[in-house]
């Protein structure tokens, strides 16, 4: 009796060991980067952490399929490395020596990814299920783009400034029009005394002490028009 029991147990154990291998069917590789995520607060990966992982996987399967049949002993871990990475499969307790299809496991993990991550204080990047890509969350987009709001504010300020200056300029023009009539009379008198209109008074030309610049000599303004 005892021998038969031992035999069946060893067969089951060997069979189970056969189920969990790298690249086995329905097996997934998991990679944790605890030191990268937590730095000095990193915990060591030991048998207790493995137990928690098995528990989380069982929890995920139960939530997904809402059958309370998955046990912690159904989750098999193997090939744990220093990296920390390992492979796991979930066996089906109702059928002997078979694994639950990978698609179901994947769907269960996707559904509960957040819970699994927070159990280990990690994130999607630091707790990687190698074949399961995470959907990226879209960035929050407000209804009106922020830049249009800032643009609108600046535009209103600039337009207000322009309107203010233009109006002030028109007012100044009206004041100047009164003054300019007086100045125009003065300027007409001055035009007669200064022969060249561009602001160089004749005295500057006298510095040449009698030399006449050939360019100006050919200038017809010396001839009075008939």
């Amino acid at each position, binding site marked *: 009796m005892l021998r038969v029991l031992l035999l069946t147990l060893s067969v089951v154990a060997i069979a189970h060991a056969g189920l969990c291998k790298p690249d086995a069917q329905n097996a997934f590789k998991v990679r944790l980067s605890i030191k990268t995520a937590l730095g000095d607060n990193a915990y060591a990966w030991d048998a207790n952490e493995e137990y928690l992982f098995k528990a989380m996987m069982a929890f995920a399967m139960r939530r997904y399929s809402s059958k309370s049949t998955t046990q912690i002993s159904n989750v098999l871990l193997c090939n744990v*490395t220093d990296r920390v990475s390992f492979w796991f499969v979930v066996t089906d307790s109702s059928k002997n020596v078979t694994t639950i299809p990978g698609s179901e496991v994947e769907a269960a993990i996707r559904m509960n990814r957040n819970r699994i991550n927070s159990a280990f204080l990690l994130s999607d990047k630091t707790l990687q299920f190698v074949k399961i*890509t995470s959907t*990226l969350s879209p960035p929050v987009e407000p209804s009106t783009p922020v830049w249009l709001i800032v*643009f609108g504010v*600046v535009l209103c300020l600039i*337009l207000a400034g322009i309107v203010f200056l233009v109006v002030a300029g028109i007012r100044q023009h009206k004041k100047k029009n009164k003054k300019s009539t007086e100045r125009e009379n003065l300027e007409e008198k001055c035009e007669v005394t200064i022969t060249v209109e*561009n602001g160089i008074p004749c005295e500057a030309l006298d510095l040449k002490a009698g030399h006449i610049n050939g360019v100006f000599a050919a200038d017809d303004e010396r*001839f009075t028009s008939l």
Partner: protein
Amino acid sequence: TAACKQAMEKSRPLWDNPLQFVFACISYAVGLGNVWRFPYLCQMYGGGGFLIPYFIMLIAEGMPLLYLELAVGQRMRKGSIGAWKIISPYLCGVGVASVVVSFFLSMYYNVINAWAFWYLFHSFQDPLPWATCPLNSNRTGYEEECETTSSTQYFWYRQTLNISPSLEASGGVQWEQALCLTLAWLVVYLCILRGTESTGKVVYVTASLPYCVLIVYLIRGLTLHGAVNGLIYMFTPKLEQLSNPKAWISAATQIFFSLGLGFGSLIAFASYNEPSNNCERHAIIVSLINSATSIFASIVTFSIYGFKATFNYESCLNRVILLLMNTFDLEEGSLTADNLSEMKDYLMATHPQEYAHLSPQLKNCSLEAELDTAVQGTGLAFIVYSEAIKNMEVPQLYSVLYFIMLLMLGIGSMLGNTAAILTPLTDSRTIATRFSKEVISGAVCFINCVIGLIFTMEAGSYWFDIFNDYAATLSLLLIVLVETIAVCYIYGIRRFEKDLYTMTGRKPNWYWKLMWAFASPLLIISLFIFYLSDYILTGTLQYQAWDATQGQLVTKDYPGYALAMIGLLVASSTTCIPLGALVTFIRKRLKRESVSTTA
């Protein structure tokens, strides 16, 4: 009489004080070129060693020509067209050419301000929009184009410019960019609306604010991790570059264009001066400040480069380490940057097959290679800097500061450009009596804005490059050459010297006269010959187009009509000079004939 003189002179607006004039010149001269061109030249032509040809050119070419233009403007008290008419009636074409070149410049330059506004408005988000790639349509990964290149380049080429693959595919006007361009022109209009009255106040801000931001960035930049790498890289002089003639030519070109000579803006600014203003001192101050700002800006740029290169280098190392750890299931922390090479050899020896399988993905990370990527122009300002900013803490603050600085630099230069166009227009009696200052300024801004919409199309960036490279370069060299020869040989250097003496009470010493008469014209002629021969020898002109599938720039040839446009740009400004002389000659001939027939 004294009363007459006062009446004549009061009619011209003046700067409130000489400080406004100096600030206006600094604001105009210190522009984007100091920030995005000089650091590139420094890097290409020998780091610290480039400063030697730079300073020699500053003293031989920059200061004398700047003094000349300021003196001409201050003496003649007119914009560029009027001033050159006084020097000699046959030279009115020089003034017209300056106005035409300024017009081209203002058309395309304000687009940079539009881009700066765009980035500024997008800086008020967390995270910054250029920090991450957008997701693709089914949310499984990032946009393909963004994956092949980086998120900052994607934001610039796709979301800002929405660039087309080539010049021929013009695409439509991007309404977002058009809005920003309109805003940029409204800002410029606000500043020039009342002439020197408003410009004089605005330049206090546009001249000083960039320095405040540069100081903040200097402090931030020097404290960044890895900044020292960039600074060492920049300042180690590679003196063998001094034997490369291109270094000297680039130094001369940079000084020339950085000071903004030949556009007529400096003449316009100086014409609003009191005649007794000491323009010699101001010329020296402005040119020294301009050069000092270039060096200051390149220190900031190189600390930012160093930070970005170090960051990329360390990211590259971390990627390699992660890849090795995952493949060989090594313990975390066993692979570090220090033992990486030994561990690689060890792994190659112990697991040769898997290592060979992995080796195409294992890039050799090199800090030198990251630092060697020399960038200039819009690429530096908008891509490299935004990439560095996104990795700093509180990136929104630094982003806002940086783009406000770019805006100040750009608007300061725009004020000078528009002054160069408006001063001759307001000087001319026919236009000034019919329309007021506000209307003329408004018309100029409006026309420029409408034409500038070309640069907001999908191919707009390529047209921008055409204008940037060809609209001003050759023409300016010719204009300034004619200016120098005109003042020295046509007007007469002794007469000019006497004018300056009556005006300011000091004679220019032998150094200035020597530079004006011989050194500067010779330098300009050699630059001119070099550029002409360069254009002729290279055959077809080419441009860099963005390839979305590869995620990088590719070289393409310009199509025929683009080449025609380039020719038109250069020809329209250079032919003004002989045309002006011809028109004056014909006019005088006609007058003389009409007088002699009636006499």
